[in-house]
């Protein structure tokens, strides 16, 4: 089996800002000839004679015809994102202009970049390591503060550090075992199996925490899946719009690559909430009733948060209590939200208040008490701790390695339970190290030996 061979010599070009119409668009060139190529189509100063990290005004021309007035930023190797010569051309944000500018650059020797190729070059040229490169990808797509801080933390190596510490402890553990195996004739003392078990238990706790953080990491990266449960006339869309306007967040209709339905995303206090539009829920006249339908129940179960919304003006106490009972059975955190307080009877509100201390009373239409609602939502998702820089696993590859590590560690525990001999324990420990190594760096047997010899006296 031989490997495909790729050249780094080409100069690549791509639109760096999102596709679509904006005020400006940035087109990025990277490669040895980036400045030369840009200079061929640029009328203004001679770019090749300019300093790095300077900006120049001029026009981009195709065979003398002006395409657009632009600003050109120069970054000379190695002081650029890719560590190659980089030129960023800011044009006006019209699809036509963008296409024309890229075309003329292609004509003069650049080639279209493949997805992720700029980051790949940055990686190949030593800008950062693999885990950091993965974090860059996350960073680019991060559209919430929490996702941003998780990605930043990973990019700065926080994730690698935590794994690194675990690995050190495991290597020490492995060394003890190897020592006992290889130096049978020596009168050295070894750690007891009880100590080994304690260490593995400790490791498992940390690994499991990291594994759990993946689910939360996913939430941070992809948003908290949220459902507003309520009859169509309960004010669901009014509430959604109220929240949207309040936050001036982007209402997006994202046709997810892995999701086959359309959803709205709202950013509340830096956390993305992804409102699941469960088809089953929308089609049913009585959404809460529909919870009983198994297909809908499945959808509901994907939610991490349910906002139970009802209209104070046309819902009976019995109905409300029934619905709440059903929701409690689902086992998903939910907020009881009574809507239209401006039109409701005071006696009903009083009764509900006495029966449900945690019920919130709002008016979506009048935007009353929305802050209370947001506060309650934030309390429930409890994501605060992830903004303070603790480690969150957001990468599926890391997640899988952690699962494999956990399995191997559990095998060690099983081995201890079964009282297997150390050679088998050592094997499962090595497996654990191997899987951890998939995240941070491979273990070599040399690491084990070096550790052994630094600590013990070994004579023949």
């Amino acid at each position, binding site marked *: *089996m*031989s*490997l*495909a*061979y*790729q050249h*780094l010599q080409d100069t690549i070009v791509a639109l760096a800002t999102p596709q679509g119409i904006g005020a400006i668009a940035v087109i990025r060139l990277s490669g040895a000839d980036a400045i030369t190529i840009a200079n061929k189509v640029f009328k203004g100063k001679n770019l090749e004679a300019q300093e790095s990290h300077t900006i120049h005004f001029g026009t981009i021309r195709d065979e003398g015809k002006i395409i657009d007035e632009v600003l050109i930023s120069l970054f000379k190797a190695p002081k650029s994102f890719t*560590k190659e010569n980089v030129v960023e051309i800011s044009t006006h944000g019209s699809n036509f202009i963008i296409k024309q500018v890229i075309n003329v650059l292609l004509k003069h020797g650049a080639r279209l970049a493949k997805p992720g190729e700029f980051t*790949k070059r940055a*990686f*190949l*040229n*030593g*800008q950062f*390591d*693999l885990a950091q490169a993965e974090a860059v990808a996350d960073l680019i797509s991060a559209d919430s503060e929490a996702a941003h801080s998780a990605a930043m933390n990973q990019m700065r190596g926080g994730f690698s550090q935590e794994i690194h510490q675990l690995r050190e402890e495991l290597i020490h553990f492995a060394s003890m075992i*190897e020592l006992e*195996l*290889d*130096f*049978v*004739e*020596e*009168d050295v003392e070894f750690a007891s199996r009880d100590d080994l078990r304690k260490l593995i238990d400790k490791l498992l706790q940390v690994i499991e925490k990291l594994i759990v953080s993946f689910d939360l990491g996913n939430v941070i990266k992809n948003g908290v899946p949220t459902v507003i449960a309520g009859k169509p006339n309960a004010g669901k869309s009014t509430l959604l719009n109220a929240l949207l306007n309040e936050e001036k967040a982007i209402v997006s209709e994202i046709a997810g690559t892995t999701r086959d339905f359309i959803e709205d995303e709202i950013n509340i206090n830096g956390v993305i909430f992804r409102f699941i539009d469960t088809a089953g829920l929308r089609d049913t006249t009585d959404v809460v009733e529909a919870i009983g339908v198994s297909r809908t129940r499945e959808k509901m179960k994907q939610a991490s948060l349910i906002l139970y919304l009802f209209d104070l003006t046309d819902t009976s106490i019995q109905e409300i209590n029934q619905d709440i009972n059903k929701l409690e059975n689902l086992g998903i955190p939910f907020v009881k939200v009574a809507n239209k307080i401006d039109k409701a009877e005071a006696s009903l509100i009083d009764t509900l208040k006495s029966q449900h201390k945690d019920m919130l009373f709002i008016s979506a239409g009048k935007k009353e008490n929305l802050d209370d609602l947001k506060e309650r939502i934030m309390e429930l998702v409890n994501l605060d701790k992830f903004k303070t820089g603790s480690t969150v696993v957001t990468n599926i590859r890391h997640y899988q390695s952690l699962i494999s590590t956990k399995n191997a560690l559990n095998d060690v525990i099983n081995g201890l339970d*079964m*009282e*297997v*001999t*150390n*050679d*088998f324990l*050592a*094997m499962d420990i*090595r*497996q654990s190290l*191997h899987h951890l*190594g998939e995240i*941070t*760096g*491979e273990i*070599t*047997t*040399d690491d*084990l*030996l070096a550790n*052994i*010899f630094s600590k013990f*006296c*070994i*004579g*023949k």
Partner: protein
Amino acid sequence: MLPKYDVIVVGAGHAGCEAAHAAARMGSKVLLCTMNMNTIAQMSCNPAMGGVAKGQIVREIDALGGMSGIISDKSMIQFRMLNRSKGPAMWSPRSQNDRMRFAEEWRLALEQTPNVDFWQEMVTNIIVKDGRVTGVRTGIGMEFEAKAVVLTNGTFLNGIIHIGEKQMGGGRTGEGAAKGITEQLVQLGFEAGRMKTGTPPRVDGRSLDYSKMEEQLGDEIPEKFSFSDETKPLTQQRSCWITYTNKAVHETLETGFDRSPMFNGRIQGLGPRYCPSIEDKINRFAERDRHQIFVEPEGWNTVEIYVNGFSTSLPEDVQYEAMRKIPGFENAKMFRPGYAIEYDFFPPTQLKITLETQLIDNLYFAGQINGTTGYEEAACQGLIAGINAHRKVQELEPFILKRSDAYIGVLIDDLINKGTEEPYRMFTSRAEFRILLRQDNADLRLTELGHRIGLASDQRLEKLLDKKNDLNRLINDLQQKKVEPNDVNEGLEHLASATIKEKITVEKLLKRPQIDIKSVGSLDKELESYLAKYSNDVLEQAEIQIKYDSYINKEKAMAEKISQMEDLKFPTNFNVDDIKALSTEAREKIRKIKPETIGQASRISGVNPADISIIMVYLGR
């Protein structure tokens, strides 16, 4: 007119003997050059073969058709299977040997190997034409022509022996050093280094008081190394003895530290960490007030004793005085003092995986010249160099053992990719597939390979195939055969194993920790007579494969996963300088070692995982 040879082997130690025997047995015309025909196959260090990881290597050499196992069996005076209390991957055969008989058996074996000629003289030069070795030149100017040359010079290249402040040239005590080869190889562009090893004093066994030591007996039922029927286990054995140093010994030794060549800088070569001299142990592990001394007899009849654990290059008067403070050694008479020896080696990163040098075609290095220590490590390199020299001359594909095939594969792969800073010794922890590389299955792993290349005999192969057939039938039967609760429950209680409620296969019973293949027979009369049809070898093998199959399978899966990297070859137009992200060290090492696959590159020291991921990304993986 001198005859022309296919393969010339320089040096007749453990590496040289295996190389000469292997090449000749496969059909090459071989000349074995040694400085002294009376010291062929000397055990320069302790009179023992095998041990943890090393015993596995001896079994592998034997399974391939090499001689070290047979020679060890024929000359052993004690046999122990070390680590019996651990899992089967750790079981390690070790023999104590009669030093003189060991050498004699090797010499007889070589004399009886057709195609081996001998020449007693120092080789001072190799002859090189157009980047290819064509023969050797000796001290008196004789020139022998050959298509390939294997250098196994051991500690003889510019060897210097140190005892206290005295130093003398020599490759072993009483034997001269070899001059000329290092200088020539350096001139040809090889990088050379210096290593150090040592040996303890030898004493008169009649002067020791064994009542003050612990006796270490051989195994009650001794086994042997060779899978062949050429040798038999011992019926009689000699014991070894264990005693310890103490504070008084250490204090006496310390009085000589100012005259120690180790501490006053006279010795520059790096010694092995795991076979340190006694002064090194005292110095580095000052908190320990005793070290173990292993008292080994040198043979059946000789009174000479090897004081293992007391390797030293301190002045002989200090050695003598300190030794006599060891319990049992109060009246010890010394035959000769311990010494340290410094010698030249050539960093093995200059070799290909066949042990041929990258620089000179058809020139092979094996043994201590490559920076290893140990008879077994040397012997297996000699074997592989001999095989590959023969195959190169015959224009056949190289013979390469993978890390998942054998400890031999681990050793050579480590040497050429990582090199070594200190004398390299094998440990089981160096092998990532320890559970697969067991001493009990070396024949199953390697004998067919050895037969295919014409080294292992037809009888060996037949014996192996019979064993395989028996084994498959037995395992299959044990998976089918079921036992009844009424028949076995009493026996199970007896073995402190849980009783059964319904029929259960014998295989399932065997997986229980309290039950082995012998006790399972005791549970049921019919089963007992069925098992009696099989040899102990086959029974043991079946037990291991059944008992540990989950671990074995896990490791097999891992080996397969890793072997995928071994299949990823670098493209021919690959230029490591194209990848700027690689560390400078990684780039230099890859340029120098020229790995053929990504897997190999990943094991080069200085090439870290980040470098590998960069290469993988670069190559579009």
